[in-house]
């Protein structure tokens, strides 16, 4: 069965670029549409101005389907096909744009998220802009019978005007969308292939494994490097009403300067085990 399954996965060019666990929860190829990805928004009551929770998330921007069309060379297309999910900040330092998909889990087990992504600032200035994107990240919003927790990983690209290029994990923090509580992944420095002008984009592979039973991080991989995150976790919060088995997956991008910053995701596969 394992051999047959492996052969079937390898024979499908859409799936053979992933390494899923035994059960695929979802596979979203953005050539097929937005696939349930939508804008994050804070909580409010009675009016949009009466924000009750997560005020920083009230302007997370709508995701879009991008063909990666550039001012100089036209359409680049995505890793596989024409369209990618695009998340775009406003042209404002510190602005964070985030999109997510809201589902529920049915078993506490290991869960793996894999995606192909790239990021860049808007190309209007005709400069490389390698310090313009502050960070890009992937997050979960989870709640079991006892607590809610927010595991997340991010690539901190630049900060305070300096190029940083390191991976971090979300260890604590209470401010959605993930504005605090970051710790370095040990030896997590990784210069990514960023290319030489703003309109040339190379795609990257990311794989991130967590365990819903222990609520711990397990592994992180980006391209040619992998890290063990065993024993690390996001400090749990109290359980909230109406959220048991919550399983939200999110992508975000944060601007370091007053320029639009873009995160593109070609496709994402989330899998779990029997």
């Amino acid at each position, binding site marked *: 069965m394992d051999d047959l399954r492996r052969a079937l996965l390898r024979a499908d060019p859409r799936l053979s670029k992933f390494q899923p666990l035994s059960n695929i929860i979802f596979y979203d190829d953005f050539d097929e*549409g*937005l696939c349930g990805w939508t*804008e994050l928004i804070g909580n409010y009551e009675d009016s*949009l101005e009466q924000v009750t929770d997560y005020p920083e998330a*009230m*302007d997370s*921007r*709508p995701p*879009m*389907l*991008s*063909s990666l*069309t*550039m*001012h100089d060379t036209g*359409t680049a297309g995505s890793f596989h096909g024409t*369209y990618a999910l*695009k998340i*775009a900040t*406003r042209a404002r330092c510190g602005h964070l744009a985030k999109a997510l998909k809201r589902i529920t889990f049915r078993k506490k087990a290991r869960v793996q998220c894999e995606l192909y992504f790239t990021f860049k600032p*808007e*190309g*209007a200035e005709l400069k490389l802009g390698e310090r313009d994107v502050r960070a890009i990240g992937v997050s979960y919003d989870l709640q079991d019978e006892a607590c809610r927790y927010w595991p997340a990983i991010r690539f901190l690209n630049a900060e305070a005007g300096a190029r940083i290029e390191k991976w971090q994990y979300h260890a604590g923090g209470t401010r959605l969308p993930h504005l605090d509580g970051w710790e370095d992944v040990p030896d997590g420095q990784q210069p990514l292939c960023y290319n030489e002008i703003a309109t040339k984009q190379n795609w990257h592979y990311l794989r991130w494994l967590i365990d819903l039973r222990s609520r711990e991080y397990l592994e992180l991989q980006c391209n040619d490097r992998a890290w063990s995150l065993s024993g690390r976790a996001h400090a749990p919060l109290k359980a909230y009403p109406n959220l048991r088995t919550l399983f939200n997956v999110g992508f975000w991008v944060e601007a370091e300067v007053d320029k*639009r910053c873009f995160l593109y995701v070609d496709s994402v596969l989330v899998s779990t085990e029997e």
Partner: protein
Amino acid sequence: MRQSYTAVVERANPLSGEFATEPYETGWAREAVIFVKVREEPGDNVELRARVQISPDGIDWVDEGTTFPAIRRRGVYFVKVSNFGNWLRLAGRVTDPGAKIRALVYIALKE
């Protein structure tokens, strides 16, 4: 089945002065309806004027030719556009320089 998607391109910021919504990629879609939902009465002598813009690259913009009628009251307003290329946005002006209009701008796209 044809794909469709509605993006709320402005909600958080009130419209004021000269404005333009954030660029939105629409290359997959054949047609769009752009809605402006004005949530509160704009005030006496305050007028919202808005027009559709398109772009080859999401950076430089040009009027598409479609304009909203002058908006003076709370309510829902719309225009229809097609053959718009890869980007759409709404640009416009609130005639009273100090006025702010609470509105949502939707782009409803369909293949």
